[in-house]
């Protein structure tokens, strides 16, 4: 994949580049702030943009805002956001703009190299990957929790893995159950939340999250 990186720490930029290059991806450019990112994407048309959240000049949510602009300009341009902290509010903002190819992960996850590379593949391929911590933040809020009270603990675990962008097979493996019973759980979740079942992992995550948002 051709990838651009927006990250203000040179050390981290180099580290991520090294991991991606080792896996055979091509990092076409790296920028230390969000303003140049838009020009860069416009010029390079990469398969994926990896974006930090806190960057100059204000070090608050530049990356999130840049990603929102990026998505509205090129809905087909996948973005993977990496941050020292994840915030459900930022995730909701970006999910609300109905994106495909969107990821939001803690920077720590880069240390698990294979998992990180998987996430890069999923997002670059138009899928959605959310950090488990984002999902748990969404689930603690009471009005969202009440919607989930009807789910069993097992179904919640499945929902969590779905939100992380896992396939049915990966969910089954993660919970040590057969693919068949994982599919049963998923069908049951959709039935309980009154959602139309959908095979596409990405649309499915968005449907669930959007349901939780309301």
């Amino acid at each position, binding site marked *: 994949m051709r990838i651009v990186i927006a990250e203000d720490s040179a050390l981290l930029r180099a580290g991520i580049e090294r991991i991606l290059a080792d896996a055979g991806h091509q990092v076409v450019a790296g920028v230390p702030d969000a303003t140049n990112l838009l020009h860069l994407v416009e010029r390079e048309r990469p398969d994926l943009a990896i974006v930090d959240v806190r960057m100059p000049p204000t070090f608050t949510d530049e990356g999130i805002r840049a990603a929102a602009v990026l998505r509205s300009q090129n809905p087909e341009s996948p973005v993977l956001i990496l941050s020292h902290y994840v*915030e459900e509010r930022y995730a909701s903002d970006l999910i609300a703009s109905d994106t495909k190819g969107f990821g939001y992960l803690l920077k720590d996850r880069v240390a698990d190299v294979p998992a990180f590379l998987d996430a890069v593949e999923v997002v670059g391929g138009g899928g959605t990957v959310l950090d488990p911590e984002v999902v748990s933040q969404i689930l603690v809020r009471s009005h969202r929790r009440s919607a989930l009270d009807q789910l069993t603990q097992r179904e919640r675990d499945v929902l969590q893995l779905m939100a992380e962008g896992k396939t049915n097979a990966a969910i089954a493996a993660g919970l040590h159950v057969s693919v068949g019973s994982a599919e049963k759980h998923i069908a049951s979740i959709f039935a309980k939340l009154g959602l139309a079942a959908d095979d596409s992992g990405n649309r499915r995550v968005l449907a669930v999250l959007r349901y939780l948002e309301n």
Partner: protein
Amino acid sequence: MAVATDVLPAPPREPIANAVPRRGTRGRIGVVPTASMLTTAAIATVWFWIPLGILIVALSSIPSVIGFLIAAVIFVYLMRGVEWVERHRSEAVFGMGIGVPPRRMSPYSGFQGWAHQLWLDSTSARFWKGAAHHYLRMLYDMLAAGLALALVAFAFLGPAAATAVRRSDAEAGLSFLPPALAWVFAVVAVVAAVAVLVFAPALDAVIDRWLLSPSPTAVLRRQVDALADARQGAVSSAQSERYRIERDLHDSVQPRLVSLAMTIGLARTKLDTDPPAAAALIDEAHADAKSALVELRNVVRGIAPTILADRGLDAALSSVVGRAETSGVATTLDVDLPRRLPDEVESVAYFVVAEALTNIAKHAAATQAVVTVRFDEATGLLHVSVFDDGRGGAVIDAGDTATGLAGLAARVRAAGGSFDVSSPSTGPTIVTAVLPCAS
């Protein structure tokens, strides 16, 4: 400057003290003020002598200590009650929103506290102004009511007397006004009596405002005390915050990094001789490094979460509660805020929730926690409560380690709020903070 600790800090809002005094004569003239004046006059004819009598007894029995003390205590209690009644009556009759002067509270407890409180009360300006107010009002009301009564009596008796004198024997040598003039005077007297009854109470309102209001000095003094208290809270909370950060780093991240460096060092020595062991050590180091990241993230988060400034309290609480959830306590966040609140209020509220949840994770052995945040539009107060079903027995203890709940209490006090912990030894524990939002 000595910080007066024996004065209650001003509560954030006092409906009476903060009500804008309504100037003008609205409510100063009418049936109610007149009735109030006549009632005072009627009661005063008897009551006037009772507290006065007790005071005289107290003063005249000074040689007998016991006699003096008993009479003095009765007098103080009587006057305190009277002041309370007068204050409420004034509010009910005139509704001027007169502020309540601060009352110095004794720091002691038990009998010593009771005696000291009596002393403080009986030596306060508020007490004697209250007593003076009571007597001045009684005197004035009796005078006004007496004048009105005399005028009415003249109106009834004057014409009758004039007529009787005219018809009497000239030999008797009686002389009085001519009846026609007596009738004129009678009408004037009735009008004057009505005027006295209607307008005299206006002066009652003036007396109330003069003697029941707190003096500017007392108001300023209370403000200074409240500010000194808040400043003390700010200083000690900043201090305990620094200790907390230092300790968090020292206890969690630092040893983790040391162990990481040691593990990698060990792995290097085994790299050539025992590759499988080296691989196992590297795995261990990797896990260590990831744990260090999590711990460091939590520490930095606790210092100043950017989301708080960026998106406000509501958004910031998601992650702090989510973190409690992952630490094994099922936590629910129930937050409902109409809008962004002032920065300082938001950060104190965030700190209260974060610190309370940290305490729960460390000490409570709880299975469930509930964080509730509500803004009361009517009073402009933000209510924050953190409930857990753990073992209880939490105390606000400013011991050697001024952290945890004591630090929270100081921080909330610095923001002019109130902080409370209810934690019986059987559990559950509820930590509440109420913060004023001057917005």
